[in-house]
């Protein structure tokens, strides 16, 4: 299992715990002191990432899409920050 901590410049702290298999996310938990409205979306977001390749563009797209579809608001962190922390926990800067 990989772990990472990422401090957003001028923002909040993100922590990720991740299990990967063959370059794809098997399980992921995102914690931290950011704000996401509505809060319960975090669990859907974690689920949506399962099966995704550890590639920044794919991760950013799926996080952004979910946030937009649900009319959600992220404060103190962006979809890209989440994606970066996930990649760090995956043990690399990612591919692509």
């Amino acid at each position, binding site marked *: 299992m990989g772990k990472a901590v990422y401090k957003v410049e001028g923002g909040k702290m993100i922590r990720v715990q991740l299990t990967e298999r063959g370059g794809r996310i098997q399980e992921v938990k995102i*914690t*931290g*002191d950011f704000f996401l409205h509505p*809060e319960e979306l975090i669990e859907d977001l974690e689920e949506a990432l399962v099966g995704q390749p550890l590639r920044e563009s794919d991760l950013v797209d799926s996080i952004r899409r979910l946030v937009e579809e649900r009319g959600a608001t992220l*404060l103190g962190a962006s979809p890209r920050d989440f994606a970066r922390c996930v990649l760090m926990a995956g043990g690399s800067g990612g591919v692509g």
Partner: protein
Amino acid sequence: MDTGVRDAFYNMALDEALVTARARGLVANTVRFFRWGPSAVSIGYFQSMEEEVDTAACDERGVDYVRRVTGGGAVYHDTEGELTYSLMIGEDHRLVSRDIQGTYRTLCSALVHGLGLLGIPAEFKPINDIVVGGRKISGNAQTRRMGVVHQHGTVLREVDPALMFRLLRVPSEKVRDKLIQAVEERVTSINRYSAREVSLEELKAALKQGFDEAFHVRLIPGEPTEFEKSLAARLKAEKYATGEWNLRR
């Protein structure tokens, strides 16, 4: 209303009960002041209790720990060292907009005004802080449920970073001193800034006046209703005092 000193689980349960009562139209918009006894650590909705809080150190000192319904970071609520407020306000109210960041600024303006009445030239600092001379004196967190904006926050009267970092997890002993020093530099308190003892009563009176004047309202002293009290008791037992809630992330 002022609900005095209560334990962490009841405090968070009563907040949710007040939101529910407001959402059902049973009560008007509410401002609540409260304190925490025993002293307690609250963590943000998205935080991991295990990662953030040294629960063994808390247990040793009789400090409670609870998860909030709001995001944001871990906060140490000292019984004497801080005053907490919460407010429950319909989303259709003139003070509320869809813009969450903007609503923070508007709602925090009452606290900024109240601190000004104590001679403390505070200002709002995005995302969710109030600072004086660049140092944090208040942290705030907001959520929206059932058509109600629920914001709570803490105003520091005294601050003890060394104690705080005994209760919160730190990466290592070496880092602990650095973190303590950083908080010493970045955080202040009413007593420290004013260089005098400001009582909790005086602070509460100033904040109440801050709400009245900044929002052009008159807060009417009140008590939780029977509905709110019994719902709070149930929410404490079934949610906020449970490991299922507090350790869920």
